[in-house]
């Protein structure tokens, strides 16, 4: 394999993985607080649209990214309000949010299907970016790719290095106990859901601001669901999100390359690989870890909390 092909495969993988990292790391925090939000797809698509619209009108990538964040957050607040204050079932509410987000974005975006924008470009650091191999792979990626990695680190830091993170985890594991010692379960969960919405919005916007300069309804094409799967794959551990996303995005990209290299396996079966590989690798990780009980599953995942006091 020649060098430039290798580099473009790796860059292709970062592009395919980053939306998944954003959406999954947001959902991870949500689930760590004990909430299961199946509306990731709906929040992503709203982010994709708002990012695109703002980039189209202002041409400012900062505003576009901000709009995507706020858009994802805004629509997730519906979910947060319903599940936290009106105690609705999280699974059903999340699915409804997906339907609503897809419909809303398709309707609101009708005027933008004819348009195109200026993409957010990869960075170029003088000298560093010019180092062979390492330069293109480490120092000249898209700024949002770095941001995704930073977010993963921040979530890890928050969960394990701050008091609030500890509280959030304890709420996810036993909301009644956390409530009993005086923590505000609803407030923590509400904030976590908003953060999840913001990250999903960013993940969606990555598609319309970095990957392709177009808007089309349903353009997230199921990536929100994959992100949900990756949270489980990661066993709710932040850094494993990166592993999962690179694995999934990587195999997606590699199977496209494999078709070009003319590997004699039918494309349908190659297309199954990313889905099967996530399952198989998680199983083999479990075997490697000697099948220890998985302690990172938030015990209260999906359960409704209402303070009786």
């Amino acid at each position: 394999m020649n060098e430039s092909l290798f580099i473009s495969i790796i860059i292709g993988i970062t592009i395919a993985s980053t939306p998944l990292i954003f959406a999954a790391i947001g959902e991870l925090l949500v689930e760590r607080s004990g909430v299961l939000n199946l509306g990731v797809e709906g929040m992503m698509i709203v982010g994709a649209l708002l990012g695109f619209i703002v980039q189209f009108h202002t041409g400012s990538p900062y505003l576009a990214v901000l709009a995507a964040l706020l858009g994802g957050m805004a629509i997730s607040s519906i979910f947060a309000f319903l599940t936290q204050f009106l105690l609705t079932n999280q699974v059903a509410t999340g699915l409804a949010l997906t339907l609503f987000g897809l419909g809303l974005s398709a309707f609101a975006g009708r005027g933008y299907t004819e348009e195109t924008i200026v993409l957010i470009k990869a960075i170029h650091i003088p000298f560093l970016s010019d180092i062979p191999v390492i330069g293109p792979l480490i120092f000249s990626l898209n700024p949002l790719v770095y941001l995704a990695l930073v977010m993963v680190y921040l979530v890890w830091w928050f969960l394990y290095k701050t008091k609030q993170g500890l509280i959030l985890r304890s709420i996810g594991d036993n909301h009644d106990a956390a409530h009993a010692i005086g923590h505000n379960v609803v407030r923590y969960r509400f904030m976590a859901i908003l953060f999840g919405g913001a990250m999903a919005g960013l993940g969606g916007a990555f598609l319309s601001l970095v990957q392709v300069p177009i808007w089309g309804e349903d353009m997230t094409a199921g990536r929100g669901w994959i992100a949900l799967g990756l949270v489980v794959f990661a066993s709710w551990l932040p850094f494993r999100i990166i592993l999962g996303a690179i694995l999934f995005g990587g195999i997606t990209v590699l199977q496209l390359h494999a078709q070009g290299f003319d590997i004699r396996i039918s494309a349908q079966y190659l297309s199954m690989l990313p889905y099967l590989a996530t399952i198989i690798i998680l199983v083999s990780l479990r075997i490697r870890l000697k099948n220890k009980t998985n302690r990172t599953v938030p015990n209260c995942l999906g359960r409704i909390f209402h303070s009786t006091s």
Partner: protein
Amino acid sequence: MIKLIPRVENSKAMILLSPLLALTLTAVSALIIFIFILDDIKVSSVFFTLFVLPLTDSYLFPELLVKAAPLMIIGLGLSIGFRAGIWNIGAEGQYVIGGIAGGAVGLYFYNVEGFWLLPLMALASIIGGMLYASIAAFLRIRYQVNEILVTLMLTYVAVLFLSAMLQGPLRNPAGFNFPESRIFHDSAMLPIIWEGTRLHIGFILAIILSLVAWFGIKKHMFGMQIKITGSAPRAAKFAGFNDNKTVLYSLLISGGLAGLAGFFEASGPAGQLTPGLPQFYGFTAIIVAFLARLHPIGIVFSSLLIALSYVGGEEVQIEYNLPSSITQIFQGMLLFYFLACDILIKYKVVLNKTKD
């Protein structure tokens, strides 16, 4: 401050009133939206088309039941697992595999007449769905791999597998090499129970299954077992119930029923296997199950409600040239309100005047 006070017992009045309130709220919100986007069309006639026409029109009403049947069957199966806290969110995949298995049997015996063919197809579809769901059960029991991941990922695999089958062994030999199966012969088609419509026997079976499930959950020991495991895993262990058994049984039941629904779809309204078999029923049925608060009889009604939103939504699109996104927005809102109004059943809303 508004406060929620839990009721000692679920309010009987609210069980009936809350859906009505939800419908009213949906109507009001939809009204506001329609006023914004429709200028010269009577909003009342939009409402009629959306809510009433599918119930009164002699063509649309049986279609409503056709659409509700798979949702009902899958929803029932899922509700059993959800009671036990088993998150099978990939019923769509089990539905597809069931459809392939049932359809493959029908195609294998192409043009063979026989009363035994349909039961055999049904059996194949149930086994297919069960086997597919059992992968998730096995991985959860043996390796503690969460079923959310496995069932979800296997859904995508099932859809690709369907595509491969229709490109290969199940392809119609006289079909110009398009990825579709033959059209099933009459013996492989479900009997129609309403002459001149597509309403098939699967709907009756769905109703019967709901009654059986209701009875089962009320009386049967296994019903008790899954209920306890779901609400208090530790208590269930003390009571001697086997957690692994619950995981296995609830995935097998939900998988088997989803598989059966796939067969009903293929041998019912579709009449052949096509890449269009997966149509989000597996996901929509999750909503159906929770709208009904996992109650089998409630599932009959919630599946009808969701089916109404589809059939009515299509008619509105046709009648007023509206984009399909309007239907989705409307469905989302409908669900939000239904879920939200549910709170009135379990809780009393009181205005707390004293400061806390």
